[in-house]
């Protein structure tokens, strides 16, 4: 009896003990990372809802004791997704933690909202701050070259502070094809931003941009700036670098002896006396380019502090950039200073506030660096026999026989005086209110306000009877004030129904206003003819004509938009957008524009039948179609204003009247673009290999063609008048984009990244409805017909000139060919033979045809980076194929200098079939033909960089987190067949770009720098 009782008690005790033991046990295990399979030390392992926890050791091991059954164990670590495990009694729990933001989960800004990258249904590319800091661009636009498929960036000039032009998926209009830039939600520009303040750039390339309606047709660039992050101790980062710039190229021109020999030959060919009977003492002469180019420094420093508590995040930064020019010494330079504050705060549980505030200051000096009469043009055309200085130590005046425009370029620079200063404030204020479950209301206002101050001094100078001679000194001063603001107010609803149907709806309004004014004046007779005294306050001279001017402008846009996004379990995605725009730019008969669009996505990799294919992490198809617009058109073109010039002379005094300006067009409206895109995204190998391809087709209708040629009887050739601007053209850009990236790891010390992108683009004009069927533009030579065209069936801005067919070797060949006299002179042996393109037996202006175009057929970026232990290395390359450039920096004048290629000129039958004979007599060799069109394809190694991180352990002791030293070379080499200064330069005009009148070349920069993270 007692035995039984004891046994029961024992059993009960045991049971209790057992259950008790079962209730609270020890658990242990190891935590590893999914990225590399290595253990993660420092992971917090905690029992949910309690304070009972521990952390993993250096080997990733942990042990938890007294863990109740059915409790939840939480594993958390910064940068990794939190993992929760139900404890049901298992003694060992090993955990693999995945990185928190895999590429798929990255959040992408898409305009009035964000989506996860895996849910994106449009053609959207991302450039993150790491890429930007790898490239260390001086201007932000440079970071988009070669890093984003479909984007082409060209520089207008290598001079410090010169502008850059961005083209997304081709040139969509003959006016301004640049995309609109939205910074933190408000319209702004990239010009003044410190690249280091940028967190990410998103490029919307297709109908995804349609939510921006009449602003989206050329693509949208969304910039998000750094704002610090929550729950982070203040991080201080200091970047500093010093670089030396030199020119990437110098042209090969004749030296003094070669010049004299060839000049003698050209005079002899025309029966004139030899200008240099004795060439023995001439030697090499002056190398004008060597005299002009020098090395120039560039300093770049910035500091930023960011961090946050759990309710506030902040970022503060300041930067200072100073760049001198490789030509011009202190007459050319660019300085930019910025200071910025960004703040985000949770005012309470449902109301968030954010603001940024940036002050920028720019100071720029420049000289005439492009075109006939520019410094480089003069240097290339000035004979080497002319010295820089005369025997008296003053600048040697360019001789009269080289024409009235060519002057001593060093003298030109020393007589150039100008200064440009810009002060700008921009920023935004915004409120996000989560005022009800699933609803967020956002109201924000972003603004830009800038003041510029420009002065240029025209000194009395005698260049020797040249067109640039100044007989009366004057100073021109101009002040501008530019302002704009963007106000957004929208409501977002986001909810998931039945765990499968995820819906996001956005409805809102945007108001945009841009306004400003300018005041300018010219003063005459500067005391002492000197820059120190050049100011209107001291210029007492009186002018007999109007010496002042001003303008004001005020343009507005009112928009309403809505977007509905739906996805079924992350597998089937769709979105539709509609936007209504009203703009002051549109004529009264077309004042409202509607822009609808739709995008679709199918994440095939989420389908059941794909689940077994483990190798593919993501396979998504995307389709998008939409109507977008562009309102980058002139103001008030629907009103006939008396803006013409009407000045005559009575009593020997100028008198101003009033006359009609441009003919109006009351039907004027926005340019409308239909964009279609089909693409797919793939990811393999745990996200290490990714792959994107797109086919796009953009047709832009209603292109505004201004000064539409209409009959002269309407007075459109009067001063200040022009033909009307009419929506009359259509251009189509279509092609493929392809991007592939691979993150490789050889071992834990050695990892690398390779990214390649390719864009194939075809541009074709489909309609030009202006009676003549084409619009002309550009300029070649002096007094020659316009050489570029926008015409149906050809790329926009194609070159229109004569085709050549070798050189006439003998008189017999000349006689066998139709006469070329209509072009200006009879041909002789040694002259260029032009093709009779229309086979009518005569060579005349009807034989002009398509001889090339400046738009590249392919652009590619190949970017490589690797990390080995504490070293990092990167190389970014950009390739452009198929773009053509016209050599337009040779002055067609008998006595100017020539390129070295003229040494290969024809001197007798069989001596050359490429370069024509030299003579001072009249020939047709200077007219615009494919002899002047060159292949501008190039490969440029944009940046090569080697960096070293100092060992962490030593630094940690003094409280520094990271110190990195690096050396880098920008534009190390450029492979190209082009003989001019820079195949990458372009004036950026849709009709007329590609004519190289002496582009200031890009600089090669050797940089040494460091960054310190505290």
């Amino acid at each position, binding site marked *: 009896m007692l035995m039984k009782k004891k046994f029961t008690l024992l059993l009960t005790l045991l049971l209790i003990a057992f259950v008790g033991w079962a209730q609270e046990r020890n658990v242990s295990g190891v935590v590893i990372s999914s990225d590399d399979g290595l253990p993660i030390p420092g992971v917090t392992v905690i029992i949910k809802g309690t304070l009972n926890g521990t952390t993993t050791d250096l080997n990733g091991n942990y042990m938890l004791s007294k863990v109740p059954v059915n409790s939840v164990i939480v594993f958390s670590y910064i940068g990794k997704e939190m993992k929760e495990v139900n404890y049901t009694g298992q003694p060992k729990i090993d955990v693999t933690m995945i990185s928190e933001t895999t590429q798929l989960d990255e959040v992408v800004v898409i305009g009035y909202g964000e989506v996860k990258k895996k849910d994106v249904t449009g053609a959207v590319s991302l450039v993150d701050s790491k890429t930007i800091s790898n490239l260390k661009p001086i201007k932000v636009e440079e970071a988009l070259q070669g890093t984003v498929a479909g984007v082409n960036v060209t520089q207008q000039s290598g001079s410090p502070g010169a502008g850059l032009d961005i083209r997304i998926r081709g040139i969509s209009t003959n006016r301004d094809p640049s995309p609109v830039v939205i910074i933190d939600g408000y319209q702004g520009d990239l010009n003044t931003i410190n690249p280091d303040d940028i967190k990410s750039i998103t490029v919307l390339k297709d109908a995804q941009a349609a939510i921006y309606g009449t602003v989206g047709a050329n693509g949208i660039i969304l910039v998000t700036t750094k704002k610090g992050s929550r729950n982070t101790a203040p991080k201080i980062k200091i970047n500093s670098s010093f670089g030396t710039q030199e020119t990437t190229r110098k042209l090969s021109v004749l030296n003094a002896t070669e010049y004299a020999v060839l000049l003698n030959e050209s005079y002899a060919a025309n029966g004139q006396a030899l200008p240099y009977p004795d060439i023995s003492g001439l030697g090499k002469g002056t190398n004008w380019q060597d005299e002009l180019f020098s090395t120039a420094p560039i300093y770049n420093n910035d500091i930023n502090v960011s961090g946050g508590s759990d309710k506030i995040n902040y970022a503060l930064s300041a930067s200072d950039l100073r760049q001198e020019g490789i030509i011009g010494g202190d007459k050319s330079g660019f300085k930019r200073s910025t200071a910025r504050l960004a703040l985000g705060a949770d005012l309470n549980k449902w109301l968030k506030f954010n603001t940024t505030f940036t002050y920028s200051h720019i100071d720029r000096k420049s000289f005439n660096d492009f075109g006939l009469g520019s410094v480089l043009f003069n240097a290339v055309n000035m004979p080497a026999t002319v010295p820089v200085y005369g025997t008296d130590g003053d600048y040697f005046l360019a001789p009269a026989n080289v024409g009235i425009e060519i002057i001593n370029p060093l003298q030109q620079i020393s007589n150039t005086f100008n200064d440009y200063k810009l002060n700008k404030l921009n920023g935004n204020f915004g409120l996000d209110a989560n005022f009800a479950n699933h609803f967020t209301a956002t109201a924000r206002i972003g603004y830009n306000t800038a003041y510029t101050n420009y002065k240029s001094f025209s000194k009395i100078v005698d260049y020797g*009877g040249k067109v640039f001679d100044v007989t009366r000194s004057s100073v021109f001063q101009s002040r501008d004030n530019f302002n704009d603001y963007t106000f957004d107010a929208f409501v977002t609803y986001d909810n998931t129904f039945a765990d499968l149907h995820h819906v996001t709806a956005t409805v809102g309004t945007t108001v945009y206003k841009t306004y400003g004014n300018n005041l300018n004046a010219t003063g005459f007779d500067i005391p002492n003819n000197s820059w120190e005294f050049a100011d209107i306050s001291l210029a007492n001279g009186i*002018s007999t004509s109007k010496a002042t001017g001003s303008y004001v402008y005020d343009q507005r846009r009112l928009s309403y938009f809505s977007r509905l996004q739906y996805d079924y379990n992350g597998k089937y995605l769709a979105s539709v957008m509609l936007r209504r725009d009203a703009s002051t730019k549109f004529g009264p008969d077309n004042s409202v524009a509607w822009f609808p669009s739709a995008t679709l996505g199918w994440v095939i990799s989420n389908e059941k039948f794909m689940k077994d294919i483990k190798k593919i992490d993501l396979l998504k198809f995307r389709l998008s179609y939409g109507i977008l617009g562009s309102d980058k058109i002139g103001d008030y073109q629907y009103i*006939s204003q008396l803006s013409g010039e009407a*000045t*005559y002379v009575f009593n020997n005094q100028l008198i101003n009247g009033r006359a*009609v300006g441009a003919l109006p067009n009351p039907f004027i409206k926005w340019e409308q673009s239909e964009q279609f895109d089909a693409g797919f995204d793939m990811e393999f190998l745990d996200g290490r290999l990714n792959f994107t391809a797109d086919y796009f087709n953009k047709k832009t209708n209603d292109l505004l063609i201004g000064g539409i040629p209409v009959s*002269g009887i309407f007075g459109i050739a009067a001063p200040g008048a022009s033909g009307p601007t009419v929506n009359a053209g259509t251009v189509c850009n279509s092609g493929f984009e392809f991007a592939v990236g691979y993150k490789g790891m050889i071992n834990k010390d050695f990892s690398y990244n390779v990214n390649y992108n390719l864009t194939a683009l075809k541009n074709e004009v489909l309609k030009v409805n202006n009676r003549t069927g084409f619009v002309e533009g550009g300029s070649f030579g002096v007094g020659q017909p316009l050489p570029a065209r926008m015409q149906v069936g050809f790329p926009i801005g194609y070159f229109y000139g004569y085709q050549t067919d070798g050189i006439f070797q003998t008189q017999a060949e000349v006689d066998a060919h139709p006469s070329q006299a209509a072009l*200006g002179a009879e041909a002789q042996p040694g002259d260029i033979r032009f093709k009779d393109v229309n086979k009518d037996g005569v060579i005349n202006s009807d034989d002009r045809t398509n001889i090339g175009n400046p738009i590249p057929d392919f652009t590619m970026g190949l970017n490589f980076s690797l990390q080995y232990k504490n070293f990092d290395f990167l190389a970014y390359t950009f390739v452009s194929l198929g773009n053509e450039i016209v050599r337009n920096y040779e002055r067609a004048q008998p006595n100017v200098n020539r390129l070295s290629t003229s040494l290969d000129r024809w001197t007798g039958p069989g001596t050359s079939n490429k370069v024509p004979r030299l003579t001072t007599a009249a020939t047709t060799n200077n007219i615009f033909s494919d002899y002047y069109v060159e292949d501008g394809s190039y490969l440029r190694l944009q940046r090569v960089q080697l960096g070293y991180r100092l060992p962490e352990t030593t630094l940690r002791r003094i409280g520094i987190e990271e110190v990195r030293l690096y050396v880098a070379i920008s534009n190390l080499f450029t492979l190209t067949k082009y003989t001019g200064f820079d195949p990458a330069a372009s004036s950026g005009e849709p009709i007329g770009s590609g004519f190289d009148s002496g582009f200031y070349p890009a600089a090669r920069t050797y940089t040494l720098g460091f960054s310190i993270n505290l």
Partner: protein
Amino acid sequence: MKKNILNKTIVAGLFTVLLFIFSCNDNFVKISPEYSIDSENYFNSPDDYYMALVASYDMLQATYANVILGEIASENTLCGGESPTDVIGWQQVDQMIHTSTNSNLKDIWNWMFAGVQRTNYFMEFKDKLEFDGKEQMIGEVRFLRAYYNFELVKWFGPIPLKMDKRFNLGDETSIPRSPVADVYAEIEKDLIYAAGVLPVTQAETGRATKGAAQALLGKVYLYQEKFAESANVLEQLIMDGNYTLVSDYNSIFENEGENGPESVFEIQYTDAEGAGFGCLQCSEGNVAVGFSGVRGYTGPLFSPGFSFDVPVQDAIDQFEPGDHRKAVTILDIVSWADSTGATYTTGNEHTGYFNRKYLPRKRSENAQNDLNLTNPNNYRAIRYSDVLLMAAEANNRGNISDAKAQEYLNLVRRRAFGDLNHDVTLTGDALTDAIYHERRVELMGEGIHFFDLVRTGQAANVIPGFTAGKNELFPIPKEEIDFSAGNWKQNPNYN
């Protein structure tokens, strides 16, 4: 909890208010430009009319192209320039190989029609307001309209006409090219009206006068070979006695001689405003002058230019010995350089001679750039000597009075030679030839000779390359033919 809802309501309310303040209606985007004047609501004061009148005068300055190209077209000069392809349009006219794609001829068409359009803008609103002096202004506007239409009919023949209203889009396909006789009829009407209301002198120099209207009318009659009417109106002008021949021929063309006693109508220019190649018709200076200058010149009196419109030996040989006009009309650069030490370079077709009447002179400090485009030399459009010679021609060819013809002719010759020993006593056809010859030497370099040759049927004989039945007119710009969509046909024998 309550506080939370209250907070949210306040914020939601604030938000809505913000929304209303900023989210305006479409009137936000319906604005008119600030500081701008709309062309259809103008002419509200006499000053507005004056401004539109000035605008009508403005296009006269663009006739520099008519003057220099007219001279190049004749056998007086060669085109010149820097090279044989410099301003190819002018080179082709010089050789009489110009076609309908000639951009310089297109400029003349465009600029003269711009002048017509500006005068018609004034005329369209002439009845809107009444004020003193309006009639005289209308007289000036109609004079200008006649001037522009006369240039157009001289160069292109039949032209579309629209009186008192601006041309509107659509007119190019509906308004036909009026026959030459009709164009002249309208020109005559305008000038008769102008001559009736314009004063003999104007307070502001440069504005049209009664004499200007009469002289132009006489010229227009002469071109139509309406000799009686021409003689009639020109003699009225002569009898009114308001003009005299200046005895020192040289002084006519110097700066000090501007708007002198011999000037019946003079197109005004100044160098006080800058100009550029981008808009030659905008220049307030005389562009033709810079283009005619001596290439690379340094030396006294003159300043350099582009060496166009260079006189040929044959033209120089037209001057008889003792003719003071020769040294004024022609600059012999070789002798000049020898005697003054001036230096120069040579351009295309260098003949050693330059059009001295309209050569760039040394400029004041105030002259604005581009100095080649802003020369202040006024164009003496109608000189009293031209009036006398036209009167002589009308009297002679109209068989009205050879005696009067001789009288007028000899006035000009006496001034030219400074004596009475070079009087002409010929009659009939011989007198006609003498008058033609005198016109050539008196008016050499002023862009008139080519049209004299054409209207008297002599062009084909003396101008190399001139094709009769074709080159009497210049081709209508090809673009205009296209714009008219079949409404306008090209002039004969041009394609």
